[in-house]
């Protein structure tokens, strides 16, 4: 066993874990106050659901012995046959370290989609959606891209840390789900300003920090590639912040805080697939392009008429495509060129097509069975109150607090409303 590698992979796993709550803050600050908690928990719940599914069968489907290049088999269901002594290879790291590292990816990826569905979906339906999506979209695609025998891995598509499997996949899944669920009431006429930009910046900072684990940790070892990836992650992200702000300043007249935070995420996304295979100048180019193009791409939803509320498409899908395609040309050591670019395009577009189709079907299935969209009244009053029986902030001295109740602790009116709802259902 390699102690240094193991330590780094474990620490990277912990860093990636932090990205999911970071994402919750990033998204949570961007929504209106009446759905801030719902936005937080849509990410947070993934730490529960996807973590459990990963151990039950997710790891096996993604990294179990290959079946036809498209999915793993069930050999490792419940982590059967894997113990503390199991190593990834002779002198490698414990399989458990790899399992927990990749578990964090499986947790983060579905959570990324929540931003497209802000303010308007039933919480239970969301929970079901990510469980199903993880099972039939993420686990197979992770296998395609990263597992021995996965068809995109065999094709030598470069996706070091998840441009296709994570960001294109989640970006296009978010688009499909947003199309099924429809626009928020009042969109785009009513102003829907972020309620807490400092929270957004805090979230972006946590994501940026955690992303070093995501990117550099994906080497699964400590070597020159790990260092190159860490350097390029920082460089491309900084460049993307600049790119976004320059576009914004020229186009809209101001350098915004939200723009800086968004640019950082766009850069992180774009360098994710590419950072290990380019040099610093390549990373710089990828970062600048991601910042400029994503800051333009977030306005597409107004032109095309869909409500991707927090720009999962504009940042994750577009950023993922930029990184995945640009590395085709910019890869060093004679790899980059038209041939590699073609492979990258196959990787990007096959994931896009598969994920869009299956995500749309899943969202539709939930919509026609248990309903995906919240009731109009719940959406208008705020999904925090409707699904979580909480409000995010209590600033008011008047009428801000409620009477305390013995027993259930739930306000009787609310309990009665909940009962009525059950009757309705």
């Amino acid at each position: 066993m390699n102690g240094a590698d193991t330590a780094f992979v474990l620490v990277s796993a912990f860093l990636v874990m932090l990205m999911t709550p970071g994402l919750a803050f990033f998204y949570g600050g961007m929504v209106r106050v009446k759905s801030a908690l719902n936005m937080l928990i849509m990410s947070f719940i993934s730490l529960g659901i996807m973590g459990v599914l990963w151990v039950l069968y997710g790891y096996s489907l993604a990294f179990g012995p290959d079946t036809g290049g498209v999915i793993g088999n069930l050999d490792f269901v419940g982590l059967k046959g894997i113990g503390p002594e199991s190593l990834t290879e002779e002198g490698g790291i414990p399989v458990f370290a790899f399992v927990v590292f990749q578990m964090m990816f499986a947790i983060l990826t579905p959570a990324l989609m929540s931003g497209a569905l802000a303010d308007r979906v039933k919480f239970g339906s969301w929970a079901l959606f990510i469980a199903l999506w993880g099972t039939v979209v993420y686990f197979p695609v992770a296998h395609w891209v990263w597992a021995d025998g996965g068809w995109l891995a065999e094709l030598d598509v470069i996706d070091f840390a998840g441009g296709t499997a994570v960001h294109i996949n989640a970006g296009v899944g978010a688009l499909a789900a947003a199309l099924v669920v429809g626009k928020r009431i009042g969109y785009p006429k009513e102003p829907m300003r972020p309620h807490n930009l400092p929270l957004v910046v805090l979230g972006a900072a946590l994501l940026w920090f955690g992303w070093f684990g995501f990117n550099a940790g994906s080497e699964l070892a400590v070597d020159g590639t790990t260092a190159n990836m860490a350097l390029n992650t920082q460089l491309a992200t900084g460049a993307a912040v600049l790119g976004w702000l320059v576009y914004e300043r020229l186009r809209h007249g101001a350098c915004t805080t939200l723009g800086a935070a968004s640019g950082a995420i766009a850069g992180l996304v774009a360098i994710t697939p590419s950072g290990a295979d380019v040099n610093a100048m390549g990373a710089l180019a990828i970062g600048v392009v991601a910042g400029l193009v994503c800051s333009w791409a977030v306005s597409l939803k107004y032109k095309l008429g869909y409500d991707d509320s927090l720009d999962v498409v504009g940042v994750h899908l577009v950023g993922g495509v930029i990184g995945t395609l640009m590395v085709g040309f910019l890869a060093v050591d004679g790899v980059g060129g038209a041939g590699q670019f073609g492979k990258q395009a196959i990787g990007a577009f096959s994931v896009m097509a598969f994920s869009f189709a299956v995500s749309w079907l899943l969202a539709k299935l939930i919509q026609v069975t248990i309903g995906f969209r919240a009731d109009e009244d719940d959406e208008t009053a705020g999904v925090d109150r409707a699904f979580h029986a909480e409000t995010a902030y209590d600033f008011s001295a008047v009428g801000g607090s409620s009477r305390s109740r013995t027993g259930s602790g739930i306000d009787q009116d609310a309990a009665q409303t909940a009962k009525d709802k059950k009757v309705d259902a």
Partner: protein
Amino acid sequence: MKLITAVVKPHRLDEVKEALRAFGVQGLTVTESSGYGRQRGHTEVYRGAEYTVDLVPKARIEVLVEDEVAEQLTEIVVEAARTGKIGDGKVWVVPVEAAVRVRTGDRGPDAL
């Protein structure tokens, strides 16, 4: 009695408060409020989406005074709130029929 209501720029609140205290006014009520006058609002940009924010934050000060000093205090409030720039706000005065101090039940000027 008269009720003086002043809607002013929030950062002038302290000036107004100090001026009133210097004159001997015992108490007042302040509410955070918002509104617009001739200066209208401003524009904010979030990821390229431009929003016109019509309502500008203001401090609304209410103070009950005796009839004889109402005119003088109005002038004091106006002077303290003024910056000379657009958006300084408004001050108005209305007659008050009755006032009661809740703790003692005192009425009229004794309640102030």
